[in-house]
Each structure stands twice: as structure tokens, then as C-alpha cells.
């Protein structure tokens, strides 16, 4: 993923100067699912308004229209978005995929009821259209109706229970509402769906630490440790996390002496890695990093 981002940044710099391959840049953004809406909207519109550049896209032109429409909506460029959606409607007059864009255009204006109408009519024909169900979730969130968004997401997950993006989104909303136990449950589902994903182990550990208590700290430490392993020992949050858990466990009452021995190896190893990394990459901060590790 890191190399992908570097490549995108490189292309973006060229495109900004007017010498880059815009089509390739847009394709890479699509592939990596990045949200760089002002660049995509600006360069995308320029490309689409140029008939020869447009012709070179071949069949991809429709995907690009869709991508640029969404980017334009993200930047509140409603006229530009309308242009793109118009072109798509001409080519695909009965498409529900384009219908979604029409709904999104209403959403961007804050015309929630109009958007609802568009989505309701699509759902009448296709009650389990995942894309439209996701728009309903997004609309609830955009209007600040977080509990409504939670409801919609729970309904969606009953239909699409392996959709890890939705579990993650649900976890994030629970966290913003400080509903930590519910967020923890989501992360348990995420780990089931993708057991080798270090970020899910990390997220789960962070939630358990936040809830607190000796048992949770012990479990959090295990998940921080697995996150370290799954990330090849590179994840700084997980390394710090193990140390924070060890410190918390040591300070908590009711712990076993046996636990203390297990504690020492993992967290000392992690502390050594942290100190080494700081010496190499951030020497000015090395003493600050060390102060929390001595605790």
C-alpha cells in the first residue's frame, strides 16, 4: 500500500504541473480507493471536457464520469457533477447505478427528502441493493442522526454479514458515541472475517484498553502482541500498546505474580524496538519516548 501511495503522489505532482497522465492518475486513485476529491474533480473535469482526451479513454470514460461526479459532489461543485451525471444518464437512461448518483446529487445539496424519494424508488425494484442501502446509512450520518445510522447498518449487516467495511464503519460510529462494548463486538466480527489483518487486532486492543479493567488489559496486550506479529514488528501503536498494557497491569490490583513474568518479555522487547526506532528515525524525540517506557 505504501508504494501505491508514493506512485499516486508522484503522478499527482506531474498532473498538477500539467505534464502527467491524468487518466492513469484517476485509475490509480480508483484502484487504491483514495479520497482526493479536489484534485480528481479539477483534473477529471478538464480531461472530460476535452473531446480528444475523452475519446482516448475508450470504454473507461463512463467509469471516469462516475468517479469525477462523486469527487465534484464532495467538493460541492454541483454544476460540474450535474454535467457528468447528465452524460451518464444519456448513455444509461434506466440505470440504477446512475440513479444512485442522482440521489447523491440531492444529498450534496442537503435535499434529503428528494434523495430519499430517488432511493425508495430504486429499492422498490431492488430491495437488497447494497449501494442504495449504503446511501441510506450515509444520509443518516450526514444529518447527524448517528443512532439512525447505527440502525441502518445493523439492518444492512443482517443481509451482508461479511461486509467488513460496514462492520468497521459501525465500530467507528459506536466509538464516536463512546459505546465501547458495542464497538468491541464489531471488531470481534472484523477479526473473524479477516483474522490476519493487523489493524483489526490493533483496533480491538485499543478498545479493550479504553474500556479498562485488569482482564481487558490482559486481553488487549495479547491483541497488541498479535498486531505486532502480523505487522512484522513495525506497527508503532502496537509496540507502544504492549508497553502501556504492561504498565497498566502492573499498577492494577488483583494480578498474579505468574502474569508478571510473562509480562516482562513482551514489553521489554517492544520497548527495545521503540527505543531503537527512535534513535534511528527521530533522535530528538528519543528521550520523550523513553520516559513513558521507564514507567
Amino acid at each position: 500500500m505504501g508504494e501505491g501511495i508514493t506512485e499516486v503522489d508522484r503522478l499527482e505532482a506531474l498532473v498538477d504541473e500539467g505534464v502527467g497522465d491524468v487518466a492513469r492518475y484517476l485509475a490509480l486513485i480508483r484502484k487504491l480507493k483514495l479520497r482526493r476529491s479536489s484534485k480528481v474533480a479539477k483534473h477529471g473535469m478538464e480531461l472530460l471536457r476535452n473531446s480528444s482526451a475523452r475519446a482516448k479513454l475508450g470504454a473507461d470514460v463512463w467509469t471516469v464520469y462516475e468517479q469525477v461526479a462523486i469527487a465534484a459532489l464532495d467538493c460541492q461543485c454541483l454544476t460540474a457533477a450535474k454535467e457528468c451525471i447528465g452524460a451518464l444518464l444519456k448513455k444509461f437512461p434506466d440505470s440504477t447505478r446512475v440513479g444512485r448518483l442522482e440521489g447523491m446529487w440531492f444529498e450534496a445539496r442537503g435535499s434529503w427528502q428528494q434523495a430519499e424519494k430517488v432511493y425508495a424508488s430504486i429499492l422498490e425494484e431492488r430491495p437488497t441493493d447494497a449501494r442504495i442501502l449504503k446511501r441510506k446509512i450515509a444520509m443518516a450520518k450526514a444529518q447527524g442522526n448517528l443512532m439512525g445510522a447505527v440502525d441502518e447498518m445493523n439492518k444492512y449487516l443482517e443481509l451482508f454479514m461479511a461486509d467488513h467495511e460496514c462492520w468497521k464503519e459501525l465500530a467507528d460510529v459506536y466509538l464516536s458515541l463512546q459505546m465501547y462494548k458495542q464497538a468491541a463486538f464489531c471488531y470481534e466480527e472484523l477479526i473473524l472475517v479477516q483474522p490476519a489483518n493487523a489493524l483489526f487486532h490493533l483496533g480491538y486492543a485499543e478498545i479493550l484498553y479504553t474500556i479498562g479493567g485488569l482482564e481487558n488489559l490482559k486481553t488487549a496486550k495479547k491483541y497488541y502482541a498479535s498486531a505486532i506479529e502480523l505487522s512484522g514488528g513495525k506497527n508503532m501503536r502496537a509496540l507502544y500498546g504492549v508497553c502501556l498494557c504492561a504498565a497498566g497491569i502492573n499498577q492494577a490490583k488483583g494480578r498474579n505474580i505468574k502474569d508478571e513474568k510473562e509480562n516482562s518479555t513482551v514489553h521489554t522487547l517492544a520497548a527495545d524496538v521503540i527505543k531503537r526506532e527512535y534513535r534511528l528515525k527521530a533522535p530528538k524525540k528519543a528521550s520523550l519516548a523513553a520516559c513513558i517506557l521507564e514507567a
Partner: protein
Amino acid sequence: MKYQISQTAYVKLALHALKHRSAAVNGILVGRVSGGGGGGGAEEDSAATVSIVDCVPLFHGQLGLLPMLELALTQIEEYFSSHQEGLSIVGCYHANERFDDYDLSGIPRKIGDHIARYFSSACVLLLDNRLLESLAKAGKKPAVQLFTRDSSRGWRSAPGSSDLVLAESTANEILYDYILEGREQSVTDFDDHLDDISKDWLNPGLFD
């Protein structure tokens, strides 16, 4: 108690929010108390001023988790107490995810409560998006809402805008210029540091 915010702190926190337009962001405010009897009870020291001298951008996106917050608070307190005389943590700032959300939610309140245990005149600043949008006309008014603790230990918004002033009257102009330049891309927060520790959450070159 009066509150004053330096150009450095103000511009930095605004740029942090602008870098992550579709996410909530938060950070820590660092400063000192001057005048009055010291950092004691707010009621007694109405002549005192809390000067917010600098800030440290913390996180973007997910703000409700404890471990990295605890880590950041420890490192920030350690840095400022040993490198910058008389400076300590005096509050926090928060910018909501949605444009028209003016609520101070549970998370900034909790962080504020935690800081208030060590500094009773702690404040929470909530970014005001409408004011930020119309910066050119903002003049001397900072685009943030000040919250302080009242006698029942709840967070309430200061009644008038005179309770928080910009230390330098040029702050909004400078911010406006930086936005035109896209300077917000250069802000580093604690999240960025954790992703790549060579990035410095002190943001040393930000205003060069």
C-alpha cells in the same frame, strides 16, 4: 478568567482541521496563566488570563480511544515542562466531523475533564465552521467557541465572544493567506507521527 490565544496556536489548530476536512480532529492546548493569584479557582482570579501559547495536533478520524491519547499527553507534558519554561497543558481543541455540528460531544468533554483535574481553569475550544468559512470578514474574532467549566463541573460556552481574544490581531489574515497557499498539507499530528516517527508533532517548520 480571561483567555487569550496566540497566532501560532490558533493558525495551527485551524490548519489541522482544514487538512482533514471530512474527519473530526482534536489537539492539546499549551500555555500559562498570567496576572491574578495563579492557576487556582476561576472565580477568584477574574483578573488572570490563561494564555494559550501553542498547541499540539493530536488525532484525525478516530478520537475516542485512550491508549494513544495517554501516550501523547505524557510526551507533551514532558516536552513542554522540560523545554519551555512555565508552559503546561491548559486545555484541548476539537473540530466536529460535520460542517453544521455545534455540539460539544462526550469525547472533548472527557478530555477536558481529564485536563481540568490538573489545571482547574482548563478550556475546550470548538472550531466554528461558519466563522472559518467567512474568515475574510472575521477580523479580530477567532473562529472558535470557548467552553469552560462552570460551578457544577459541566462545560458551557462562554456567553460573549470577549472571553477569548486573539493575542495578535493579524491572526485571521495570516490564516487566510496560509489557506490560499494550501499550507494545511504541512501539518503533522500525533497520528501522522505514529504512522512515521520521523514526522514531528511539534511542527517546527510549519510557519517558516
